[in-house]
């Protein structure tokens, strides 16, 4: 491959080719079959290089606790003798370092503010209030059935679910520490100097700009990447994995598994009670609905289920453990003669059939206890022809089965008067 051809390839792959150069490249590809092979080799090598470099970038991150330990040992060696010269020098150094951090960190790395808080959300100074900016080194804790959305100046948002504890870094460069619970992030694209790093007890997650879901419990972290690429390093052995969009990984085995198919999700925000048309799916079609962005939150609106066999697949939270699946359901078939109406299906097996005899045209909460594990396939399968258009000119009517809200509850939440508050829970988007 000549130098001129190599430059053409370089500019093509650098997306730096004008139309004239593109025509020249096409001509050269015709004339020289080796050039096309070289293009394939270059693209493949670039893909490997990118994978390797992203993995390296993730590996360079160290947890905050390690830094603290090293500082402690250094202080122990020095002893406690006050040395004025050293203190003055240190003050100068830290002053300059502070200035440098302010200059280099920029707005994206400033401390987050509370955007919305629902339920019991505590910061060191008391209950969290919208608009409050969190202090460096402070913590945020959500209680049962509570949630909070934190926002950064660059538009990045972190939504914390119920029973979640997060520590804001003392400096812009230290990782955010997710002690336990569930976090869902929508992070603006950042340069490596400003990347968001999240640590847990078992892993370090490096985010350049992406939508991700993260769940942490003692010794275990589950990361799901909806958009972008995220590196995760397991602290126990240093093994790392680059998680591409559409996949999730569990720190216990570091295996990549597919996430819920996002393009088939119907956004909770898109479903509004105000819409009389509801949202209908084709009979027999399998759809996924995305009511449950976080444990403790649910969407609003109605989903009409038109036909037998229609399956509504639920995105299972990344968190594991015993929980209850709550479904708010309404059968508007005036006749209510066709029973049962739907079944709760886990990993292809019907675990509970739900009958609504005598409850026509009334909202009904259905509870199903589940021992939830990340990766489980949970679905509602319609066993009832939900929409019937009757041609009879006298008795013409339309009957609809509707799903109004779905939620996995790890907490003590029960349906009732708090429903409205629950449905107003925040979403990170």
């Amino acid at each position, binding site marked *: 491959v000549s130098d001129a051809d*190599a430059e053409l390839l*370089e*500019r*093509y*792959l*650098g*997306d*730096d*080719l*004008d*139309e004239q150069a*593109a025509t020249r490249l*096409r001509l050269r*590809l015709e004339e020289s*079959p080796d050039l*096309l*092979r*070289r*293009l*394939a*080799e270059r*693209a*493949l*090598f*670039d*893909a*490997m*290089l*990118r*994978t*390797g*470099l*992203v*993995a*390296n*970038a993730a590996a360079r991150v160290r947890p905050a606790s390690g830094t603290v330990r090293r500082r402690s040992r250094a202080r122990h060696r020095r002893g406690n003798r006050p040395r004025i010269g050293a203190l003055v020098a240190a003050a100068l150094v830290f002053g300059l370092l502070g200035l440098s951090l302010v200059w280099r960190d920029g707005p994206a790395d400033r401390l987050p503010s509370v955007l919305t808080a629902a339920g019991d959300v505590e910061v060191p100074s008391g209950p969290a209030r919208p608009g409050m900016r969190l202090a460096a080194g402070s913590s945020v804790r959500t209680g049962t059935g509570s949630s909070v959305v934190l926002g950064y100046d660059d538009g990045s948002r972190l939504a914390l679910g119920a029973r979640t504890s997060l520590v804001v870094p003392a400096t812009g460069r230290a990782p955010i520490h997710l002690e336990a619970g569930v976090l869902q992030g929508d992070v603006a*694209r950042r*340069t*490596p100097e400003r990347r968001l790093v999240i640590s847990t007890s078992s892993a370090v997650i490096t985010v*350049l700009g992406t939508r991700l879901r993260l769940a942490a419990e003692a010794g275990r972290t589950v990361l799901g990447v909806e*958009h*972008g*690429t995220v590196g995760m390093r397991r602290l126990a052995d240093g093994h790392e994995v680059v998680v*591409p*969009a*559409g*996949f999730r990984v569990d720190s216990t085995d570091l295996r*990549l*598994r*597919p996430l819920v*198919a*996002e*393009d*088939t999700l119907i956004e909770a925000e898109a479903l509004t009670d105000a819409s009389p048309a509801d949202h209908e799916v084709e009979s027999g079609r*399998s759809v996924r609905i995305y009511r449950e962005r976080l444990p403790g939150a649910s969407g609003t609106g109605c989903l009409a289920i038109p036909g037998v066999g229609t*399956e509504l697949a639920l995105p299972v939270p990344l968190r594991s453990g015993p929980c209850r699946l709550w479904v708010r359901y309404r059968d508007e078939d005036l006749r209510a003669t066709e029973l049962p109406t739907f079944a709760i299906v886990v*990993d*292809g097996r019907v675990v509970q059939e739900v009958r609504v005899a005598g409850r026509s045209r009334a909202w009904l909460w259905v509870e199903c206890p589940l021992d939830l594990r990340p990766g489980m*396939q949970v*679905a509602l399968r319609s066993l009832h022809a939900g929409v019937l258009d009757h041609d009879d000119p006298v008795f013409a009517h339309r009957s609809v089965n509707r799903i109004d809200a779905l939620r996995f509850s790890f907490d003590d939440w029960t349906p009732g008067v708090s429903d409205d508050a629950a449905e107003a829970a925040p979403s990170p988007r």
Partner: protein
Amino acid sequence: MDAESSRAGEEVMALFVQHRTRIEAYAYAILRRYQDVDDVLQEVAMVLMRKHRDYDPTTPFLPWVLAVTRREALAQARARRRTNTLLDDHHLDRLEAVMAEADAEAPHDGRMTALMTCLGQVGRPGSDLLRMKYVDRYSAEDIAARMGTTRQAVYSVLQRLRARLEDCVNRRLGHTGAAS
């Protein structure tokens, strides 16, 4: 979703993960913007999950998934109105054939391990440049502006770095020739 279908879906996704580098390379060769490539990879993964039944496991996986990748990449290019610098269909046919060649089925684990070792030997300025290009996704123009040099110089240095890395990988794997 029945258990058998679920298993078949998992097998297709396992093949996707195994060949991900090659799928990414093909999408990159068409689109040349990593953010678009990431989007396409996600789309491809979703298509595979939805349509895994369309794949006949008695046939090679790569040609099938590369055809899906091409379709998604071209749709992405159309959506972004970037069709003017795309390769022609017959060039894409040939590129796809090269990408799907039989030796491409070989796992990349050894090559990747060698590359990681070789990356560790790249000095600071070189690794900074590679990071800006491949992790931060800066354009050659942006890199040139940051480093106070010309776009042409950036291309030259990147070419030299890649050539050195390819040589290093091949030496470690005990053979010569271009890295592929």
